[in-house]
Each structure stands twice: as structure tokens, then as C-alpha cells.
């Protein structure tokens, strides 16, 4: 289970205009295994920041993020030892960022195999899983051994999504997973999200696309003035 409790995030800038930016203010929400909670709202309201706080890319200002791992141990991700968090990142958390940052000189299939190999899965099995996901999201076989820098925006986005979920993470953070996808690809990605839910993953997603969100989300919140308002 993921339980976010009174989470606040403030950015204090020491350079430029030296502003203090209140981004999230006492956000509380919870997601059960097999559920997807979606956050919607206009750009710049803190949707991605919420995901980054959960992943540890942003340090929280106050509040707690309780996550119960596969061994039934509950961690506070907001106040956690870096090495324990690193282990959780490798073994349990999948993060699909809005922008795909990979080394441009590594073939797509190798990029996908790496997180599996890091988890101790054999190369043959890793390749098999990577190929099956590439096929599922409709990336043509001719691209599998190509560098992602040669991919179109939509292909990169699909690669980004399967890279984030290839390890079948227990906690999945999705930042605009359907942005820049054609309708066909969008359907494939939504199917993938449904599959993750059926496997019991806890999913926290950020969406702009209301119709896509409705297909997969069990609960949705709108970010209003740095706080969450239940939509459905």
C-alpha cells in the first residue's frame, strides 16, 4: 500500500530571483495494490513533483510517504536511508518519467535488459521479456537493435514506458504515459497498465488526457491550489 500523509514540498531558490515556491501543501492520498490513482490538473501545478517526491528525486519539505514492500515492511519514503531507497528503486519501484533520458549509444533491447539483469535475471530471459514488451507496444522488430536517438517521439515514449515497468514493479509511477502517442499506441499502453493492475501493482499516474485516464484509473484527483481534490 502507498499512503501519502500531509506531504508538502517547497522549493527554496538561492540563485536567480531567490524565490520560495510552494508546490504541494499537505497532500494526502492512498493507493491499494491493484489500484491506480490518477492525478490530473493543468501544467505547473505539481503533478510531476508529487511523483518525484515519491521516487526521491525531490526531497520533501514535510509529511510522510508510507510504502509497504513485498516483505510487508512499511517504509517512509520521505525520510529514508539512501541505500535502502536505492534497493527499493532497483527491486520494487518503476518510474516512467516524462522525458526519456538514456545513453544514446545503447540499443533499445540492451536498455530494456539492463534493469532485469541488475535484478539478477539471466540474459536470455531478459531478452525474451524485452522482446515480448517491444512487440506488445508495437515497436517494429527492425528497431530493436537500433539506438533510441533514431526513434520517433511516440516510439521513444513507448520504449520509456516499457523500460519503467519491465521489472513488473510493485509500485509504478507514471508521468504522462500517454502523451505524444497515436490512438493505437495509446490503447496498447493502457492495456499494459491494466495488466500491471491485474498483477497487483500500486500505480500512481499523472495525466493530461482525461479520456485515457478514465479507462484505467480507479480514483482520480485534481490538483487545485497545491492540494488534491477528489474527482471520482
Amino acid at each position, binding site marked *: 500500500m502507498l499512503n501519502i500523509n500531509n506531504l508538502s514540498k517547497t522549493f527554496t531558490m538561492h540563485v536567480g530571483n531567490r524565490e520560495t515556491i510552494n508546490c504541494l501543501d499537505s497532500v494526502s492520498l492512498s493507493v491499494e495494490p491493484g489500484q491506480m490513482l490518477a492525478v490530473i490538473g493543468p501544467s505547473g501545478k505539481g503533478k510531476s513533483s508529487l511523483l518525484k517526491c515519491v521516487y526521491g*528525486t525531490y526531497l520533501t519539505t514535510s509529511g510522510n510517504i508510507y510504502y509497504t514492500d513485498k516483505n510487508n515492511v512499511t517504509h517512509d519514503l520521505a525520510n529514508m536511508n*539512501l541505500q535502502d531507497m536505492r*534497493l527499493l528503486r532497483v527491486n520494487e519501484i518503476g518510474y516512467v518519467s516524462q522525458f526519456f533520458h538514456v545513453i544514446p549509444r545503447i540499443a533499445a533491447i540492451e536498455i530494456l535488459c539492463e534493469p532485469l539483469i541488475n535484478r539478477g535475471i539471466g540474459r536470455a530471459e531478459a531478452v525474451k521479456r524485452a522482446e515480448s514488451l517491444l512487440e506488445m507496444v508495437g515497436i517494429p522488430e527492425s528497431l530493436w537493435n537500433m539506438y533510441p536517438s533514431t526513434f520517433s517521439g511516440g516510439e521513444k515514449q513507448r520504449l520509456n514506458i516499457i523500460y519503467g515497468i519491465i521489472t513488473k514493479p510493485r509500485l509504478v509511477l507514471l508521468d504522462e504515459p500517454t502523451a505524444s502517442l497515436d490512438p493505437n499506441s495509446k490503447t496498447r499502453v493502457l492495456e499494459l497498465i491494466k495488466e500491471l493492475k491485474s498483477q497487483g501493482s500500486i500505480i500512481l499516474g499523472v495525466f493530461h488526457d482525461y479520456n485515457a485516464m478514465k479507462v484505467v484509473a480507479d480514483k482520480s484527483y485534481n490538483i487545485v491550489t497545491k492540494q488534491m481534490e477528489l474527482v471520482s
Partner: protein
Amino acid sequence: MQQVMNVNELTVRYGDGCVYCIDSDKSLDKNRCPKCKTVWAVRNVSFSLYHSEVLGVVGESGSGKSTLMKTLYFDREATSGQTFLNAYEDGKTNIFSVSSQQQRAIRNNLLGMVYQNPLLGLLMDFSNGGNIAQKLIAAGHRNVSAMQSRTFELLEHMEISVNRVKEPPKNFSGGMQQRVQISKAIANNPPVLLLDEVTTGLDLSVQAKVLDLIRMVQKKFNISIIVVSHDLAVIRMLSDRTIVMLDGQIVEHGFTDQILEDPQHPFTQTLVHSLI
């Protein structure tokens, strides 16, 4: 995660220090004592390195990054502080407190170092094979054919043709010299590899090649690496965790993505905002 190295309150100073700068936490002029002019190159630095982890060290020139690396490799003497290596007496003995003979053994067997300047890491008039053999012999290897096959294997990992094993590094380009240095540094499978500004001064495509090879070596052999760079792109590509140094001290540490996306310290923010 298993800890492989623990650095505790490490200090390196140039000069004797005075009552003002030794006995108090009074602020210095950068890292220099305003009274006695002692330079505190590294001051009370503590961190741990874990198995198979890449730890980045960033900071501006003169912040103590290279001094830290050279001290850990026994090129400089620590003024105070301790360092424990898990692979040396189960991490129970401070490696700065052992005899110089023991330190040589630690340096040859348990640590690898790649310097920014290949002149510091390679004998330019020796052959490439001879340079690598030097490290193997220092670690006690004596079987010539075993050393030769290990040398070939290392050069192949670094994508250097074995036909060039007899050539001296002085005939090589900067990028190739760095690759020979890496081969030499990992020759004895050290658990810890120290990389000091290894791609500085190389052109972009050569930098990329060297970084790719470092990444490959790290994954293949599960080596723990400390990488010093003032180039945040290098840090982003290689390191899991990053420490930020300013005037000889650590001012911030965290996951590399956190340091780059949510820097807390004014200096780290300035550094990140200086990215081109």
C-alpha cells in the same frame, strides 16, 4: 547493500595550521586560514561507498576533489581521519595507519586509479603490455603466459587491438591512453576504482567512448567506483549517488537525480544552473 569503503573525518591540510584554524570551526577564507595561510584541501570529509555503486564527486576547481582521490590512493598523506576497506582485514583497520609496505599492497590489490593526466598513471616509454604487467607483477603475479593472456583480455575489454600491445602509450591518442590506464587500473580486479577527471580534455566522441567503456566495466565486474568530475553530464551518466564539495568540505549529498533536479545548497544550485 554491502559497504566496501568507509571514509571517516578525513582531513588533508597543507601547512601546520594554527590555534585559529585547528581548534575551532571558524570560517576560513575559502579553504585557507586567514591567519596562518594553511590550506585545508580536504576537511572532515566522511562518506561510505557501497558494493557495485558509482559515487560521483563534484565541485569547482580547488574544492579538494582530486586531493581526496589522491589521498585515498596514498599519493598524498592524510593529516587526520580514517578510511576502512571492507576487503582489507574485514574493514576493521584504518588503511592510513598501516605500514607503507601494507599500503603498497592495498594499492596494488584492492584499489585502481585512473588519473586525469595519463603521465601520472602510465610509463610512457614502456609498452602497453609492460604497463599492465607492472600492476600484475606488483600484486605478486609471476607466470608470464598468464599475465600475457590477462593483458590481452584487458586490452580487448577496452577495445584496443592486441596487435598494439608492444607499442608504448606515448604513440596513442589521449582517449586510448585513458583506456590503457583503465586496463591497468582494473588488472587485479580491485573492489574499488578511483576515476579522477578521466574524460577532461578529450573531445566529445572520445569522451563518450571512454565513458561507455567505464560503464561496461562497472556492470561486468560489479566494481564500486568513485568518479570525480566537474562535468555534471559525466556524473549524470555514471553515478548513482553524488557528493558535492566546496572548499574542501561536503556541502550536499544525495541521489544523483536529486542533486541535479532538486539541489538544496546554494553552491549546488549555482553549479546545476551553470549547466550549458
